[in-house]
């Protein structure tokens, strides 16, 4: 089952943010989206997550139009981690993660277990009891990651689960970037689909089954990282000169700036 767009176009006034885009996110697959600033990556995520309706075209979640779903049921299978989360209230860390259980009625006991497990999954079990407002940027990021994981922690009778992450690694250190990739891979291995926007091409190449390059509101290349990441393609999309070598262990492409 998939989360897919059919010729989705998003315009604001005269400006087209997203041009007739077809995209399919399949269960078990990790899709990474890369592209320069203003390429339409976040617009694509917003359309995929029902944050905005596309001006033209359609988005379908597990076969049904996105806006035909009951919002609460939809939230049980589709979780979104935005770039920035604004939370100014001194919630305890586990209370923030428990917000992810809002669409469920699984009871306090089960919720507590899931919150604990989700925090442990992102190496943040030790943050329990701390006040959210006192955390560092990276710690906050991990807490929100735990929140969206808790939201779609268990398989749902409503079909495959989908996880959308907008620059999840932005404020994470190297070790936690690696941890994030592990978490994401495990989620995909359990049958969920993952779609993440990242700026680091090497990070994308390391984890993605499929890599999309976007420019000017359109997908200009799509496929396995090894096929998409070529010197010519990177030059065309980002306008930088790079060299590509093969990672000695993983065999994945490695981008080196000249």
């Amino acid at each position, binding site marked *: 089952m998939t989360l897919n767009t059919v010729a989705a176009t998003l315009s604001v006034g005269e400006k087209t943010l997203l041009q007739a885009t077809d995209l399919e996110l399949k269960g078990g697959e990790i899709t990474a989206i890369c592209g320069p600033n203003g390429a339409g990556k976040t617009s694509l995520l917003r359309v995929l997550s029902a944050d905005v309706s596309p001006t033209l075209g359609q988005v379908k979640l597990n076969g049904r139009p996105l806006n035909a779903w009951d919002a609460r049921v939809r939230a049980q299978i589709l979780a*979104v981690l935005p770039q920035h989360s*604004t939370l100014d209230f001194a919630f305890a860390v586990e209370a923030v993660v428990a917000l992810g259980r809002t669409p469920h009625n699984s009871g306090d006991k089960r919720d507590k277990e899931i919150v604990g497990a989700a925090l442990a999954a992102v190496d943040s079990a030790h943050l329990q009891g701390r006040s959210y407002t006192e955390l560092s940027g990276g710690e906050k990021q991990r807490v929100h990651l735990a929140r969206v994981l808790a939201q779609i922690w268990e398989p749902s009778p409503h079909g495959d689960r989908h996880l959308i992450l907008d620059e999840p690694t932005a404020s994470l250190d190297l070790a936690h970037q690696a941890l994030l990739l592990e978490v994401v891979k495990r989620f995909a291995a359990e049958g969920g689909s993952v779609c993440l926007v990242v700026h680091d091409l090497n990070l994308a190449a390391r984890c993605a089954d499929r890599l999309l390059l976007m420019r000017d509101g359109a997908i200009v290349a799509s496929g396995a990282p090894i096929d998409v990441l070529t010197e010519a393609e990177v030059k065309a999309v980002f306008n930088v000169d790079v060299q590509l070598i093969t990672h000695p262990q993983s065999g994945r492409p490695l981008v080196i700036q000249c």
Partner: protein
Amino acid sequence: MFGPVSIPLSSLIKGLASFLGFSVEAGNEDLQRQWLIVSAIRLPRMLLAALVGACLAICGGAMQGLFRNPLADPSLIGVSAGASLGASLVIVFASVWFQNGPMGELLGLSLLAGGAFVGGSVAVMLVYRLATGAGTTSVATMLLAGIAISALAGAGNSLLSFHADNEMLRRISLWQMGRLDGANWSRVLMAVTALAVLLAGLLSQGRSLNALLLGESEARFLGIDVEQLKRRVVVLTALGVGVSVAVAGAIAFVGLVVPHIVRLAIGPDHRFLLPASALLGSSLLVFADALSRLVVAPAELPVGIVTALLGVPFFFSLLARQRSRVD
């Protein structure tokens, strides 16, 4: 038990007993007089203080959740200002109904209440219409629109003051200070109804309001019908503040300070914040009203002045603390 006329506890118990049908010291005129003071003046006044305090505090808590800002207050979106303008309009243009006999008095009071409620509702609807568009609400626009409405209502009040005679002027200024000395059982009934509607409509929304603190999009991602939630909070707050202003005038700072204290004590979770704010708000206003009657007895201060005197230093210290944490 507190007030210009000292009533001992024993008289209170005897009065209550005879009210309940026991014949205690029948024919004691002193006792009857004391019981009248309690049942017709002090009891409704205390109840009204408790109810209005609860209404204002719970409205403040819900508003702060809606705006995702712990410094927000119903008066910020212009509800209080609109309600006082409505009340002032009634005082000035319907003044003829205030003076003619006991029946006119009652009619005037109801008119005043209606005016405050309509004023508050019109203000909040206007702000809401200004600030919403294309299916979403901009919180910043809503706050700014609230400021504009407050300024407009303030100007309207000043204008009305020019046209008012001395008696009206006194009424308007008393109204704007907020006071509880007009308490009677019909006002208590009105406040009880408003509080019941608020409790029924808001207490169930604790989880949704918590999710809304993450931001509107995030709340939507968590399956919350954000537009419906916002509509509900806006309408119920207009009702709560409108009725509070109608029965007791514009009592400031309760809606701002009480949820703050509660948040410091038990955290920001709305499932507990809203009921706890209602309890603390009613206690605070009963306490403030008792102070207002005792400080300059046998005269009394408007309770709005007391809450402002209690609230402002507290509010400044909160501001300073928040500021030092941010910097």
